[in-house]
């Protein structure tokens, strides 16, 4: 794509803005937080000169900036996370009857993963990216992506498969690329 950075920015927002917002929402679970994260990530991406900035590369920058922000937030909240079980009542027992409960349960479980695990899960299973494409987007190795996916899936196994614990223990199948 040619043109100025502002043209790339406008095209990115028009064509991929919704996808970026959904990605941020799945990582945060809050519409307002997601919108703020995307807005900030866009400004971080286009707020400095970057030669040869194509639409795919700009989208990768923004996704990485969103993830970095989620990681930063996770670090800041780390202390609270470590002690919050002392202050809050136990969460209600999860119901497996209603599909919506299951859906919300899984999305919430994804958000409880380490941010990079969650990002890999979302990019792989929601955005349908290959392992190599995820590695390129997040700026990490394919091996790291596979590890994050494997660990994330193990953590989610009880939510996605009643026999998930067994699959996790026995190794399950492999991450498709």
């Amino acid at each position, binding site marked *: 794509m040619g043109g100025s950075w502002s043209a790339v920015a406008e095209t990115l927002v028009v064509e991929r803005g919704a996808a970026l917002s959904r990605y941020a929402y799945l990582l945060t679970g809050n519409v307002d937080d997601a919108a703020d994260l995307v807005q900030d990530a866009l400004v971080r991406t286009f707020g400095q000169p970057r030669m040869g900035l194509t639409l795919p590369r700009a989208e990768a920058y923004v996704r990485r900036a969103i993830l970095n922000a989620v990681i930063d937030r996770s670090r800041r909240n780390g202390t609270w996370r470590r002690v919050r079980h002392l202050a809050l009542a136990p969460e209600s027992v999860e119901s497996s009857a209603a599909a919506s409960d299951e859906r919300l349960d899984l999305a919430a479980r994804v958000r409880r993963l380490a941010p990079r695990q969650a990002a890999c899960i979302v990019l792989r*299973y929601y955005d349908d990216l290959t392992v190599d494409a995820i590695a390129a987007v997040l700026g990490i190795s394919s091996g790291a992506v596979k590890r994050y996916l494997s660990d994330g899936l*193990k953590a989610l196994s009880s939510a996605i498969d009643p026999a998930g614990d067994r699959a996790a223990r026995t190794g399950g199948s492999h991450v*498709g690329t």
Partner: protein
Amino acid sequence: MSAPERNGAGDRIGEQLSASADAATQRPIDVDAVLAASRARRRSRRGAILGGTAAAAVVLGLGGAVLGLSLGVGGIGVSTTAGDGALSEAPAADTMPEAGSESAEGDALGFALVPPELANRCGEPVTAPPDAGAVPLTVAVTAPQAVEAGASATAIVTVTNTSDAAVSGQIRLAPALTVAEAGVTVWHSSGEADPLSRSIELAPGASIELTGDFEARRCGEGDDRRTSLPADLPALSPGAYGMAAIVVFTDVAHGGAVDHLVSPLAAVDVVAH
């Protein structure tokens, strides 16, 4: 590697995540606000390429105590100096790899190196520091008086808070060093594969010292299109050269803006081996 295939349990995950995202009404992105904020940030970044003053003099003028922190990370050293002991640092556990939000920038340019190591490319003019006083942190580099041609040496880079208010953020421990001849880059550092940053809080007048290694060797155009400069670069000819440093500072209090703090050139003599 153990994990379900995309078309197995993965499909269920995808469907549920999709349903969850569909159930929420996303707030539209204000593209005008993005463009306006990006333009403002670009203007501010141009102004935030900072220069230092004679920091060694500043540090000496403070007459403060060296708090004596030495991290010894991969040959990178850091020590802190403060007039009233007003400098505080985060615990060692806070040391962590840099986020690397600009890590793809070098690749976008066709270079394997990334900023700030790419700021001064071999054979190109050295980035000029901004006007003193434009920003709170100034950077100065102190090089050895003389370095043998072809040899390695260590330079001290001092970052000083010259403002009236405390400054806090993340600082990359490895400064990017540049050797210049008549204002043109003849050597620059290649950076760390996994650069470490550290949280700092500098009181007014306080400073922090970083160290970095450099080589009295000459690179040419194209030598920095790799992950590091070639190992067999020719030695510099004896003579007078300049040395500059760039320090990466992330201003946490202002949305995590990443500033490249640029020092003015300091003199360094290269002598015959």
